[in-house]
């Protein structure tokens, strides 16, 4: 095992997959000599050259379209979207072409591509901060991954680069500088498998991406007050690991769904409904961003996005123990 920063784990996954499969190419803004907006492609341009590590103009529609077409025609492209917000500009080729290609061609064409997009609020304001994962979960044909640890980032990105169809791989600005353990041996993590990060008995807290980190912090605080929480890191938003969720919720009888994005039609709304169908008598609650754009002001941003205190309070309310 070695310790790597999240961004380094991504870089190692890309390097290994590019070494393994010459069809893998990278395309995105500032990924070549600059080394990536988050320093996550550092060294790849020098190692693999300009044909496989391509800077693109600031044009997300053609960036995603290039990836979709190149994938359909035999490459395995990874397209970088600097802020998940900007994927809105590239949704047409992703949703209308890539996600439907296998179905509409009756299996003759597929689009084995990855869109890596960076979500999350970190002081950059309304259009550099959104978490719109549920939009993507809503699309048949898309696999949606959102790891929170360096090890998972490594294993899941490798899986994404081998997947038979389009994958949206969502990372988070606050995760890049975090360190974590990455296996020395090559390893992949299957899609649709959640991770139980912490075991408790009273309540199941379900999160993904950076909110998994915050949920663990909240679980620590709850523990001091005698409440023990399971914390499940979804890792894969589609497909969903219902087995892991059901096993935990079946034990605790209470599930709190936490996300950084909006609650309305959110990840929590979908999971709470699905889990209640599977776990009779389950009590559920959800917590997401307040219904407002994310501000660039640290005060306003912090008020909008869930934090450990709000998560712990929501868990107490769910358990009928009142807020602290």
């Amino acid at each position, binding site marked *: 095992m070695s310790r790597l920063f999240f961004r380094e784990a991504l870089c190692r996954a890309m390097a290994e997959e590019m070494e393994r499969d010459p069809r893998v190419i990278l395309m995105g803004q500032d990924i070549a000599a600059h080394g990536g907006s988050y320093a996550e492609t550092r060294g790849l341009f020098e190692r693999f050259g300009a044909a496989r590590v391509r800077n693109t103009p600031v044009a997300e*529609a*053609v960036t995603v*379209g290039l990836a979709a077409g190149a994938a359909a*025609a035999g490459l395995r492209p990874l397209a970088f979207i600097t802020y998940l917000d900007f994927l809105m500009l590239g949704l047409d080729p992703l949703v*209308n072409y890539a996600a439907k290609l*296998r179905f*509409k*061609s009756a299996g003759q064409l597929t689009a084995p591509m990855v869109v890596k997009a960076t979500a999350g609020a970190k002081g950059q304001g309304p259009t550099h901060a959104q978490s719109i994962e549920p939009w993507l979960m809503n699309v048949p044909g898309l696999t949606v991954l959102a790891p929170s640890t360096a090890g998972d980032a490594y294993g899941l990105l490798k899986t994404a680069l081998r997947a038979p169809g389009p994958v949206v791989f969502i990372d988070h600005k606050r995760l890049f500088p975090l360190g974590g353990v990455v296996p020395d041996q090559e390893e992949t993590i299957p*899609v649709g498998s959640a991770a139980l990060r912490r075991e408790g008995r009273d309540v199941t807290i379900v999160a993904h991406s950076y909110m998994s980190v915050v949920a663990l912090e909240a679980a620590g605080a709850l523990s001091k007050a005698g409440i023990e929480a399971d914390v499940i890191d979804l890792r894969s938003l589609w497909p969903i690991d219902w087995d892991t969720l059901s096993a935990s919720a079946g034990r605790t009888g209470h599930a709190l769904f936490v996300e950084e994005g909006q609650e309305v039609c959110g990840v929590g709304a979908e999971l709470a409904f699905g889990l209640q169908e599977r776990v009779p008598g389950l009590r559920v609650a959800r917590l997401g961003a307040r219904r407002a754009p994310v501000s660039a002001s640290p005060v306003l941003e912090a008020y909008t996005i869930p934090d450990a205190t709000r998560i712990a309070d929501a868990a107490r309310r769910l358990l009928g123990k009142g807020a602290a």
Partner: protein
Amino acid sequence: MEPQLGTTFYDVSMNEPRVDLPQRNIPDGAERHRRLQALLFLRQFEYALLRQPKPGFQLLSRGQEAVAVGVCAELKTTDPLLCSGRSIGVALARGVPAGGMLAELIGKDGGPNRGRAGRAHVSMPSVGLFGAHGVVAGNLTVAAGVALAQQQLGTGAVTCCIFGDGACGAGALHETLNVAALWQLPLLLVCDNNGYAVSTSVRDGLAARQVIDYAAPFGIPAASVDGTDVDAVAAAVGEAVAAIRSGKGPRFLDLQCVRLGPHSTLTREERPPAEVQAFDAHDPLRIYEQRLRSEGLLDDARWAAMQAQVDAQIAQAEQFAELASWPDAAEAVLDV
């Protein structure tokens, strides 16, 4: 849970009638007969489609057949062709068997995509039809990606994308032109310019005086061509394809043609009646028939024989489509 793997795809019989594909060569008499017969085949096929009990929501190619036939005449099967939702003529000219195409259009299992794709999304990569796409301008960026793959894999293939004049106001065209020029992609962009985006004329919808003006700022060589003249189309496409194949980067063609009918089988005709009537003089089939007659390459007997042969082929295609089964409803969730 792994995403579902593709099912074995339907093997459309290549023995069923299809267009006798025009060849890439000097247009001698035999080739010109093939071109005329292809134009006729496309026209008669669409009449057969309209005779179906439920033809559905279709965008017909009537008036634009010379674009389809002329472009396809100059592409190899290994050159991926992407097109817009006005795909019927293009698919037939590319060599999709007529029976399978008809089945696909009405949603039956005998189509190349088992009836799932229909007009707007039909594809048959084995004959070089990489696919139609129902989003106006939606296929342009994808075509750039297909061209990038050809460049990267060193296949030597030219990727061709046919789109309507309506796509010329969309940002996707300009992003595609930029990248195609920047990376010198082996990409032929063909504007199938019928002058109208549903009811909005090119004059009312596009600021440029002519669509080739959009290629100019990117340094992409472009030409406007009479898109009702199949020989002129084939000549221009042949020249462009040769340049692209020799590594000279992307090309842009504006093929000006007419849409003889309304936008779709379900759309009201909104164009001025006098203008629509005048289109008859630009009917590519009649123009070509008369030209071959005037050049002594066609007489009544030859024309009658050609019509009889096409009619028989179309009748066979209709029978194929009629006998094709409807897909099992459970297929609706396969290959997702």
